[in-house]
């Protein structure tokens, strides 16, 4: 490639290092490929909000959907779907959950909120075994890998995320 673009001799007082230009063009093409890969990954949700980021875990009839990849200071919604036990669905946030996230909003609002052994327990009334879908809007302030846990009707769930700066 270097041989194809020749030097120009001119009376211009110009620092034209053609070899450096040629190397620069090669680096540019590599950079464009990186840019394209970055764009594809972002569109697919590698940095949050997309197919690669979505994760759903299920246990004992309850499901939790959340994002594996988050961006710092960006809101994310954890969707909890579970049925009530004896007319109540309970969600318990472990102390590490409260340390990890800033809870921005919970919808629907809990009928009761108690703190027990540093754990925050939210209770939602249901009709018998009725299903309830809960949306917890959270915000993450730190960066890096984070694992936290919460309980839905005494069933423990572990949520693992990677938070980008």
């Amino acid at each position, binding site marked *: 490639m270097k041989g194809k673009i020749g030097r120009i001799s001119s009376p211009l007082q110009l*620092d034209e290092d053609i070899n*450096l*230009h040629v190397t620069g063009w090669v680096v*540019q093409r590599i*950079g464009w490929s990186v840019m394209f890969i970055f764009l594809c990954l972002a569109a697919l949700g590698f940095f949050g909000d997309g197919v690669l980021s979505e994760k759903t875990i299920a246990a004992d009839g309850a499901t939790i959907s959340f994002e594996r990849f988050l961006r710092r200071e960006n809101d994310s919604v954890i969707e909890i779907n579970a049925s009530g036990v004896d007319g109540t669905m309970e969600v318990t946030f472990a102390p590490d959950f409260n340390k990890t996230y800033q809870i921005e909003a919970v919808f629907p609002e809990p009928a009761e909120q108690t703190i027990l052994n540093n754990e925050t327990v939210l209770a939602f009334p249901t009709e018998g075994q009725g299903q309830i879908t809960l949306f917890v809007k959270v915000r993450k302030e730190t960066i890096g890998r984070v694992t936290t846990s919460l309980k839905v009707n005494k069933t423990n769930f572990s949520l693992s995320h990677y938070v980008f*700066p």
Partner: protein
Amino acid sequence: MNPVVRGLAIYLFILLWFRIVGKRSLAESTAFDFVLLLIISEVTQQALVGQDYSLTGSFILIVTLITTDLLFSLLKENFPFFGKVTEGLPLIIVNEGKPLLKRMRKSKVSEEDVLEAARIIHGLQKMEDIKYAILEKSGDISIIPFRASAVLEKKI
């Protein structure tokens, strides 16, 4: 995030990005390029400031950006090769009225871009009227017409 880290990250990212995209992206050659630069500056401003609207935060950011720029200019002064790599070099794209198509293609410059610069700067009408066209470090195209070149050669 610490504003110094944020300022440095944004500075280096923009520097790297514009080098990768090419110097013509800075040239604001079309109205859309201008709008794109405005959008980039708006997004950058949000990323720089985040949720810190304090006066101290803005002072830290300003000092970070100016100091980084100063450090870079010192590096360029003491290590010319560093300057060549980070800022690029001028490139001759028209020689004696002949467009150097390979160089132009690699630099994403079209013949129309050269002719436009020739019309705007010197009121030239044809490629044959251009002795040299140079793609400058800034991404602008400078034109040396044959008549100016004749004066230059006489002086030499």
